[in-house]
């Protein structure tokens, strides 16, 4: 059962990667990265149960925080770039 769930998660990650490669805007890529972050969290949690050692959920918790902070960081950078004239987007 855990196997089915983890295969589904892997498929979803692959689909998210396709979106991250295709874009077309940067926002799409950030969105895909955010989704992959969530999926990785779930996969780590499921993996813990699958290998019979679910006490390693700390890793998944760190992933949640990190993917959140890096999403915010990229938006912050992008916003400040596009506001400075001559330096921002094309």
């Amino acid at each position, binding site marked *: 059962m855990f196997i089915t769930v983890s295969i589904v998660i892997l498929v979803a990650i692959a689909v998210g990667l396709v979106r991250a490669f295709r874009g*077309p805007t940067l*926002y799409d890529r950030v969105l895909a990265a955010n989704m992959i972050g969530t999926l990785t969290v779930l996969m780590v949690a499921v993996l813990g149960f699958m290998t019979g050692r679910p006490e390693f959920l700390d890793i998944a918790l760190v992933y949640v925080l990190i993917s959140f902070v890096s999403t915010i960081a990229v938006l912050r950078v992008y916003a400040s770039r596009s506001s400075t004239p001559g330096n921002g987007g094309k």
Partner: protein
Amino acid sequence: MELLLDILSWACLLGGAIFLLIGAIGVLRFPDFYTRLHAVSVCDTLGAGLVLVGLMLQGGLSLVTVKLLLMFYFLIFTGPTAVHALASAALQGKLKPTLDEHEPE
């Protein structure tokens, strides 16, 4: 009782997996960024939530379940916040049409 819990947890896990898949397909197939946001929200809340509830039922009353609850709490706040920040940043970006057609390739 044991069996009931197992069945419940499998149902939750399976439901969560289906929602994750639906969300992923949506991210791939939807035509533009704002519609894709909806698909990701399905993943972030319903899919992740159901999977975590399924795991909690497996974990029983232990530290594992507390950590899963904490994860649930984090995800339920960070997911929508990130998507909201993304949507709002994109909206402000769209005011400049050049950003809209930003083709990184």
